[in-house]
């Protein structure tokens, strides 16, 4: 990755974070913590990795993305808006009555959403279905699916994981956002899904563990995933919940809460300062 490309990605990720704060603030509800932790992943997927076209959101050969942790759609919506799927202004109407952007992704109406998700553990199965369809049709598209580390408490995740390995779905790449927190507390204290990497390995996945905020690491991981044949990939991304907004970082309380006026101003000031710094580089 050229320095200029990395800079562009960092700027985009910062704008995605601003979109998240903007959306959740105006919605007066929603899930900023896990949206912010995945900002680099959303950014990398939509601005570097995936074959997608906002002018033709349903094109047959597109790569698919399933946000299995659907509650973090403020991050996905911010990335889609930045990519041009719908106007940025829609972010300010997130969760409002009659608005385009639903509290969880709705594929029927929102351009760029490949699967309706929100009930945890279900997106990964749909992603498996898309990957199988790709194999049946000898299509070259890849399927990316983002899961939460709390979400993998769901038994369906492991049903789907067995399925993916059994069917050698090497066109499927899971990303597990390992930000370490879920609603009731640290994931290891709530129901202890770890060791996450070993579990996916034992289910037949090629597993990588990376820093989910480092674009070089993300690039290397996705590039490697494309070379894996005969089995699905899982990239465990170590992240900081609430990343980029100082008072939200690593705070379980910011899983599903909107900032008040003052917090909103603080968050936007912080992000604007980061943006200005990046642009001045």
């Amino acid at each position: 990755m050229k320095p200029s490309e990395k800079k562009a990605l960092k700027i985009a990720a910062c704008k995605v974070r601003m979109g998240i704060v903007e959306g959740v603030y105006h919605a007066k509800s929603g899930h900023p913590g896990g949206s912010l932790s995945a900002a680099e992943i959303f950014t990398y997927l939509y601005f570097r990795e995936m074959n997608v076209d906002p002018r033709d959101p349903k094109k047959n050969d597109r790569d698919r993305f399933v946000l299995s942790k659907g509650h973090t759609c403020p991050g996905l919506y911010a990335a889609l808006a930045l990519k041009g799927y719908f106007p940025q202004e829609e972010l300010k109407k997130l969760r409002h009555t009659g608005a385009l952007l639903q509290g969880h992704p709705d594929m029927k109406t929102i351009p760029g959403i490949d699967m309706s998700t929100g009930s945890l553990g279900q997106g990964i199965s749909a992603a498996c279905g898309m990957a199988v369809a790709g194999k049946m049709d000898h299509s070259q598209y890849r399927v990316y699916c983002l899961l939460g580390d709390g979400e993998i408490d769901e038994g369906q995740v492991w049903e789907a994981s067995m399925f993916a390995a059994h069917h050698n779905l090497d066109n499927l790449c899971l990303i597990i956002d390992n930000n370490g927190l879920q609603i009731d507390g640290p994931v290891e204290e709530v129901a202890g899904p770890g060791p996450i990497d070993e579990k996916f390995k034992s289910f037949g996945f090629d597993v990588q563990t990376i820093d989910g905020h480092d674009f070089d690491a993300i690039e290397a991981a996705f590039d490697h995933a494309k070379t894996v044949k005969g089995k699905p990939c899982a990239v465990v991304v170590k992240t900081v919940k609430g990343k980029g907004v100082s008072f939200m970082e690593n705070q379980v309380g910011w899983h599903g809460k909107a900032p008040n006026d003052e917090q909103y101003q603080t968050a936007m000031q912080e992000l604007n300062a980061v943006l200005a710094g990046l642009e001045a580089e």
Partner: protein
Amino acid sequence: MAEMVKKATRESYGLAIAELGEKYPQIVVLDADLAEATKSVFFKEKYPERFIDCGIAECNMVGVAAGLATCGKIPFANSFAMFSAGRAFEQVRNSVGYPHLNVKVVGSHAGISVGEDGATHQCLEDIALMRSIPGMVVLNPADHYEMRAAVKAAVEYQGPVYLRLGRLAVESFNNSDDYKFEIGKGITLREGKDVTIVATGLMVSRALEAVKSLENQGIDARLINIHTIKPIDRDIIVKAAKETGRIITVEEHNVIGGLGDAVCSVLSEEYPAPVTKIGVNDQFGHSGPAGEMLEVYGLCASHIEEVTKKVLAK
């Protein structure tokens, strides 16, 4: 005219889907380790490359079917009704119903006539569950020819469908491959003016038997076959209430949430009339041969006859 056949609707389904596989290359059949029982095995034998055994993991199966549908496939997800409609209800609701995907959820071995396996496998709630999902079509065909036609209609219909299959062999009363099936249209099998019996699925042949016997006793009962529980044929029900006054519904399902309630809902809104519901009266089943179970729970011609006479005597 084709011959009268005695087949379980699950077998008629299996034959139909295997046959339709040729004309519709988009059909993909999924099962959850019950292909021999659900008869999806017929498709598996013919089109192994379009058959996916998901193992004993119904929730994932429904999700995989949803993903396939987003890519233009027509997936049929098979298991016993208890598991495809019951265990995976929330997956059907959120991954299929909400995005209105073109997935066909198939529930075989529905009702008390599963028999010996007993209460854990006798699904008496699937119709209630599936009809509560917005946009879901609910089909419960009654015999071989109706099932074949229903499977074809389900393939041609764009959107989510729940298809209910029975384990028990049933003698066909439709006897032609030309049998016309239209989603949402009830069928008047017998005209009559004293009372109307509205039946669905396995109970249609039982009701037909009852109606014939009642006729010999001078009772002129109308018989309506409701193969589509949702969207239900409002016109045929309202017309029957207007012309015969009293309605009796018959279903191999809990009396809560099934055909009887669907009929009551139509009548209470459009033409209030007394409705007597024959079904399983908010109970669990138990083990025993299917025929005996149907007798025990009053899902037989003699009980339909008895109830009809009581209703007319009121």
